[in-house]
């Protein structure tokens, strides 16, 4: 399968601000790829470089196998849906959508035909003569999408396109966008900071953190095998333990943390290494006595009801809190009782600690 967009060693530096670092990203033809990350992590900058509005400080970007650093935005086979929509306020909806075709000097009758088709596709029939200021947020959004899609781009870039809509409309537009993407078979590169949106819409998710691509994978991979602590905490809820490996037997790994031991399963770790253990709330179990490999006690503090789900908050002796999640009606410990949290070893995700070197250095200092 060919790659339609390839970013190789891309860096972007504004003054002293290193916004995008050594970005390697290959986007497959026809896929829905989401750039996900918290605000300020460099998503927009990355998208703007692909669109051609910014030049990478170093590195290369290829679209359809062609290096496009030299091409101006108006020469690229890529279109953008802007976060603020950027509709032309002095042009009617028809003229807004027809803009790209007019630039390509498409004959008038064909423009009319294609705009009409496109307006049908995004369910905007009858709005031809209106101006952008006369539309609601959701309608403007559709115009922005129609205006970009009418050029039949190979790649559509979308920068938080649903950010300004209310929750209900956002959910609806998520489905519509997904439907459009499947129907037209266009590659979407989609920027959002909303992890739920990313999980529901994407074929693959690229998680960015401080300008670095932390992990690239399918939603399931990202949820079940986060590669960094940031990814584990950013996607869904999780319980995090920082500790040091004290014993490895085959794939079974025992980790010492404050106030006791916990266990997990994984490969490629070595004894003495500092790691992070992530366990999803729904995977957490509890017992009245310590279990084999799990010796940390916890105090049951509170319950939170979220629809049909109950979250049980327990606190460890060092004050850290854990969440246990169950469906309503399932058995949970009483508030005030002491429990021993544990889990099936394969349910824990073990993550190399980025700060491992720092800890090792500190450990190597000997005090007389």
């Amino acid at each position, binding site marked *: 399968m060919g790659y339609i967009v390839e970013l190789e060693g891309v860096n972007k530096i504004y003054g002293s601000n290193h916004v995008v670092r050594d970005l390697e990203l290959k986007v497959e033809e026809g896929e829905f790829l989401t750039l996900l990350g918290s605000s300020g992590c460099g998503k927009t900058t990355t998208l703007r470089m692909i669109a051609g509005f910014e030049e990478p400080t170093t590195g290369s970007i290829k679209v359809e196998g062609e290096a496009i650093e030299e091409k101006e935005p108006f020469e690229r086979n890529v279109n953008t849906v802007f976060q603020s929509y*950027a509709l032309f306020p002095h042009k009617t909806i028809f003229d807004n959508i027809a803009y790209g075709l007019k630039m390509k000097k498409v004959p008038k009758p064909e423009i009319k035909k294609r705009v009409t088709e496109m307006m049908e596709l995004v369910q905007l029939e009858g709005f031809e003569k209106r101006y952008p200021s006369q539309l609601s947020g959701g309608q403007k959004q559709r115009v922005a999408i129609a205006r970009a899609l009418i050029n039949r781009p190979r790649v559509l870039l979308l920068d938080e396109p649903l950010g300004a809509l209310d929750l209900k409309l956002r959910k609806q537009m998520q489905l519509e966008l997904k439907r459009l993407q499947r129907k037209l078979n266009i590659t979407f590169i989609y920027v959002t900071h909303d992890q739920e949106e990313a999980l529901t819409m994407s074929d693959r998710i690229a998680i960015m953190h401080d300008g670095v691509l932390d992990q690239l994978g399918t939603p399931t991979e990202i949820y079940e095998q986060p590669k960094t602590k940031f990814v584990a905490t950013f996607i869904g809820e999780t319980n995090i333990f920082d500790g040091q490996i004290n014993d490895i037997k085959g794939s079974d790994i025992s980790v010492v943390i404050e106030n006791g031991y916990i266990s997990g399963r994984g490969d490629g770790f070595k004894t003495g290494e500092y790691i992070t253990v992530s366990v999803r709330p729904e995977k957490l179990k509890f017992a009245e006595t310590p279990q084999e490999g799990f010796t940390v006690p916890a105090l049951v503090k509170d319950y939170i009801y979220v629809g049909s789900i109950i979250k049980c908050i327990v606190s460890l002796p060092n004050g850290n809190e854990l969440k246990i999640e169950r469906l309503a009606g399932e058995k949970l410990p009483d508030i005030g009782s002491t429990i021993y949290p544990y889990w099936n070893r394969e349910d824990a995700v073990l993550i190399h600690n980025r700060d491992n070197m720092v800890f090792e250095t500190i450990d190597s200092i000997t005090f007389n």
Partner: protein
Amino acid sequence: MEKAHSKHNWKSNTLPALVTVGPLTLILVLLVAIPLIYVVVMSFCSIDQYYNVEFKFTLDNYKRLISPDYMKIYGQSLLIALVTTLLCILIGYPFAYIIARTKSKKKRLLYMLVIIPFWTNSLIRIYGWRTFLGNNGWLNSILQTLHITNEPITFLYKQGTTVLGMVYCLLPFMIFPLYTALEKLDGSLLEASSDLGAKPLVTLREIIIPLTSGGIFSGSIMVFIPCLGYFFVSDILGGGNSDVIGNLIERQFQSGNNWPLGAALSIILIAVTLILVRIYKKMGGDMESLGV
């Protein structure tokens, strides 16, 4: 009870209004309304043989306004104003665009470059041009020293020189509203246009100019109207064929000593101004960008 209530109302509503709006209204009445009424009344007065103003109603002044001599000067004045306005747009637009789109420190420097001459008295600056362009002026000395010409070239006393002076004086009035309009322009619209395949010049035509037409129009009004009245520019730089309406008015009040006729001429200028402002408002222009 009823009385106390109304007294309270007077104190809380009318008094503050009087105190704050009152002085302003008074100043406006003193400085604008009264002189204006005076001019209107004067334009209907007649003069005796010693050119003294008599308060005797007459339409003679207005009849004289439509004499062929005057008509020619109106035409000439309108032409000068039109050419000046067009030149100001052509020069001011790129300049305002650059200032509006430049970031940070350079922007302030560019802005100051426009403002500083604006703070200097324009009469002095126009005399500066005369010194520069005169037959014994710097420009001619330079040209003769470089042997580009042997005889001094007459730059002064032409319609073109008047236009040059007008453009020079009035350019800031064009740049300020253009700058305001361009500054407000949302950059993502330009990116969207380019993204959709428009080359820069097409974006200029399709997006930038239509969205800043308000600025172009208010700038044009602010250049065109003074241009009809700036008599000192044509006095100092222009020859006999570059009089503007302002020259006619000035002459009646000074050497002509025919105040009623001068007043009637002024009324024309006021009328042209009002008509232009009216058109401007009709076209959806907002008065704020005219500084009103």
